[in-house]
């Protein structure tokens, strides 16, 4: 099967930076196989996500969408890409515009991508809110009326309203309490299973990745140190750094 997204020998160097943020990174996002990008601050996770989102162009190598290099000048491809790949951001407190109603926030991709308007848009917003288990009247309310977990649901509703194939989520649960964290992971898992979406999630926490993603890529200092099926990475971590990440996760007493 053709991967939906792929980084092929991708590198990225910020201007005047001594070292590249990403160096020769390759991995594929296969349909139906959620992928976790794991590493610490400075590992290059967010830069990799930014490449996958088409917000940043690699300084070497390429980003492929449905097997074809992402070309910012190809408007047909870009339109298809924008509809198919949607972001969920880390902080539900700062990523939602406080002056807009939840209905407008969630419906924004429909308007900007020209996918739906009027009654049809309202129906799709209502469906998206339902999918993330928010009440229908949420559309008329404002972000400040919701808790952190509910705001992350709003952000997810916005991401799924265009029925994308891939959700790219940057630390979607790290700002949340543990009980809320589990609920959002479960929600992302359900969306992946029921709506055929593939989740690519960035996290510094292997337990969160293990709870959701079939595939794991471990990044350190801008390079891939290990990748494979999450169960394999957990069972037989080959790299010292992966072992250290695993050992660092706080565990409950047996």
């Amino acid at each position: 099967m053709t991967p939906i997204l792929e980084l092929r020998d991708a590198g990225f160097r910020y201007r005047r930076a001594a070292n590249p943020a990403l160096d020769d990174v390759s991995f594929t996002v296969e349909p139906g196989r959620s992928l976790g990008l794991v590493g610490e601050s400075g590992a290059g996770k967010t830069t990799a996500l930014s490449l996958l989102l088409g917000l940043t162009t690699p300084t070497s190598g390429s980003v492929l969408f449905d097997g074809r290099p992402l070309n910012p000048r190809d408007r047909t491809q870009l339109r298809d890409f924008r509809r198919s790949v949607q972001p969920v951001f880390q902080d539900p407190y700062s990523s939602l515009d406080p002056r807009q109603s939840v209905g407008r926030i969630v419906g924004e991709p429909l308007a900007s991508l020209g996918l739906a308007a009027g009654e049809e848009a309202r129906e799709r917003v209502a469906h998206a809110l339902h999918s993330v288990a928010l009440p229908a009247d949420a559309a008329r309310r404002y972000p400040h009326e919701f808790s952190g977990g509910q705001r992350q649901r709003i952000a997810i509703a916005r991401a799924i309203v265009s029925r994308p194939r891939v959700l790219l989520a940057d630390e979607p649960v790290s700002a949340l309490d543990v009980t809320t964290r589990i609920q959002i992971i479960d929600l992302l898992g359900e969306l992946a299973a029921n709506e055929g979406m593939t989740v690519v999630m960035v996290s510094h926490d292997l337990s969160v990745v293990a709870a959701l993603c079939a595939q794991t890529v471990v990044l350190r200092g801008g390079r891939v140190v290990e990748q494979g099926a999450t169960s394999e990475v957990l069972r037989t971590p080959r790299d010292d750094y992966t072992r250290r990440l695993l050992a660092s996760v706080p565990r409950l007493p047996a």
Partner: protein
Amino acid sequence: MSAHNNAARGLLEVDGLSIATRDGDVLVRDVSFRLDAGERLSLIGESGSGKSLTSFALTGLLPEGLHATGSVLLDGVPVIGARERELVALRGRVASTVFQEPMTALDPLMRLGRQVAEPLRRHLGLRGDAVRQAVHDALAEVGLPEPERIAHAYSWEISGGQRQRVAIAAALACRPQLLIADEPTTALDVTVQADVLALLERLVAERGMALLFVSHDLAVVSRMAQRALVLRQGRVVEEGAIDGLLSDPHDPYTAELVRSARELDSALELP
């Protein structure tokens, strides 16, 4: 008289602590507990539970607009209603706090060495070379490489994990009997978190300090404390030994916390 030579009195005694806004909204209601010298206790709760406000009230650090009622005795000294001058004498010497976000706890305009030196000058009256030596020792004790370089640096010039180590060094410089740690590792990467927790464990054990560890993370709490209070919406819903809370939670909310933590934990179990 210190708590050490009076077994009948706890190092920290909290009785009927409530915290309210000026408008009368009660954020923490009737919290009571006791912490003895050398004991490790946790306040567990999620956002809005009042766990951080409770920990702030213990050394009179509540934000403007909030006020506390009830009784807090720190080494026998009443905190609620005390003058700022009396509180300054307690902070750093009897009890010190390490906060969640070291970036906000440290002054970005002051070299880190001066921030560690400040409590040493105030409480221990150290001056000159004695201060420099004590700052060096304090930074070295928290495992910071090149203490001289760190002492001359500003908070924004070092990493998040290093900042938290500096904040711990400053908090512990005057050898307090109680360390209050308010989500000290929540803002850190897991590997850095593991290092900082190990550091706190070592320092608390070496000095025989009491620890009040505030967190929403049961896995972290089970490592750091023996006993816990579970807070929800400003009230204590359950308290007891951590092992008991994990194996046999009585309150439905505690049970929900344990279930969530177990679900996340089990994701790392091998199939």
